[in-house]
């Protein structure tokens, strides 16, 4: 059993089938790059795992816990970074992270220590007591990552975490994700920046029209499709998918 197991996942919106029986499995400690064109179903999949969107059919489990019917228990093990999100701009990162920690079931003392640890890890220490509205986009993304990590979850679900960041910011986020995986955390992140995937992913899954149409290590996929990089793989697969 993987850290994340999805079987036959379906989601119908009014006129659109966003997911048409998605199967996906991510082993513990892996960094899994979840790729696909816009509207392929990446965000919907992550939102179902988090409990923000209700599946129409199929199963999803996180560390063996049913994420659809036992969401509260499953969410204890995940840290989630949405594609776009807001934070209380007039608060400081420390205040915001404390609130998120307590909302995750941590005591105030434990949260305080944890904030210091994470801030050191992702270079946020100097900005912990400044108002969020005064911080740069890169620093706001760091706070977003910090809120996902605050309760030390085993599984990280990041939706387009590098979109909109400059190359330096992107590298920092990628390095951080790789570091989490090295500590045994499982990372599933969606993106369409395939160079990011090549840099850090153990496994890549390509989703198209709500179905997983290709999966393997970047190396395997390149060989299989005779491509020089994942961009080429993606284009070939998406065209025939």
């Amino acid at each position, binding site marked *: 059993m993987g850290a994340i197991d999805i079987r036959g996942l379906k989601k119908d*919106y009014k006129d659109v089938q966003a997911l048409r029986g998605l199967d996906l499995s991510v082993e513990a400690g892996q960094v899994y790059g979840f790729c696909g064109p816009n509207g392929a179903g990446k965000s919907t999949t992550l*939102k179902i795992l*988090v*409990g*923000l*969107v*209700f599946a129409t059919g199929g199963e999803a489990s996180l560390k063996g816990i049913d994420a659809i019917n036992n*969401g*509260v*228990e499953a*969410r*204890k*093990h*995940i*840290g*989630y970074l*949405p594609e*776009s*999100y*807001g*934070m*209380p701009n007039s608060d400081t990162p420390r205040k915001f992270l404390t*609130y*998120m920690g*307590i*909302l*995750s*079931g*941590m*005591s*105030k003392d434990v949260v305080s220590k944890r904030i210091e640890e994470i801030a050191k890890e992702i270079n946020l220490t100097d900005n912990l007591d400044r108002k969020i509205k005064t911080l740069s986009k890169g620093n706001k993304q760091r706070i*977003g990552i910090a*809120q*996902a990590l605050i*309760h*030390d*979850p085993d599984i990280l679900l990041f939706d387009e975490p590098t979109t909109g960041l400059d190359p330096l910011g992107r590298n920092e986020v990628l390095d951080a994700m790789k570091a989490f995986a090295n500590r045994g955390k499982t990372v599933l992140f969606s993106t369409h920046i395939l160079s990011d995937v090549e840099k850090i992913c153990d496994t890549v899954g390509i989703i198209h029209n709500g179905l997983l149409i290709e999966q393997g290590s970047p190396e395997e996929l390149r060989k299989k499709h005779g491509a020089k990089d994942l961009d080429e793989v993606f284009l070939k697969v998406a065209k025939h998918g």
Partner: protein
Amino acid sequence: MDSKVNFPVIVWKRTMNLIFSIRGLIALLMSIYMVIAGAYLIDVLMESSTVYGELITLFNNRPDMQFQWFFFDGALMKLVTIFTAPLFIFDAVSGDKKGERIGILLSRPITRTQYMLINLVSATLAFGILFFGTLIPGYFAIQPQVPELTAGAYLATCSLMFLLGFFVLCVALLISTISKSNLISFIIAFGMFSFLMLPNAVKYNSDAFMSLSKITPHYYASYFTTHDITAGYFVGYAVIIVLFALPFLALAIMKFRNEDL
């Protein structure tokens, strides 16, 4: 992470955030105005040339209960309650959706019902703290002006008005859950209360308003209550207000529990 979420701490932090904000300040100023008006301005305001004076002349057929009408029944406290309570909740859900905070908040190990109750209880506490925080000291300013006012009756009536605030909060929470815009939520929350309360206030002016007044909780409450300030209101009034509030709360929770975000 096996520990349980400490909801009292969460609720308290949110309550303090609401109180120490612009909306908290507005509610505090309105509550202070209510007490000052009740204690010191009653004679001036009840002169026939003022709005309150005109209203009292129009609607209050018990000249011996002018303070009662002025403070509780007629306008002042209901008005303050109706306008301050929604301030604490009109954007509770719509604001989290619009500000894209909802995904982060609901990725925590809490249920959607708990999220809604955190919002409602925090808003109720914030409203209650400011409401009683000004009204209880206010008693000592008001009582010398209205010697027949007893502490028990005053507190009991204030408590009922607090429950009216709770009703307002439940309806505003439902509106905030349905609406996708803070502005629309704000307008509907305040507009709806004008609709709910005004027909009752002006029911003697026209038959149409008399029919409309039947949809207001106050119309039915009057069957179960006395309006004598020295006795306070009956428990029936409290029961009716809560019974009116709970369906709105249940609807808000049901709507939010089944919504894709």
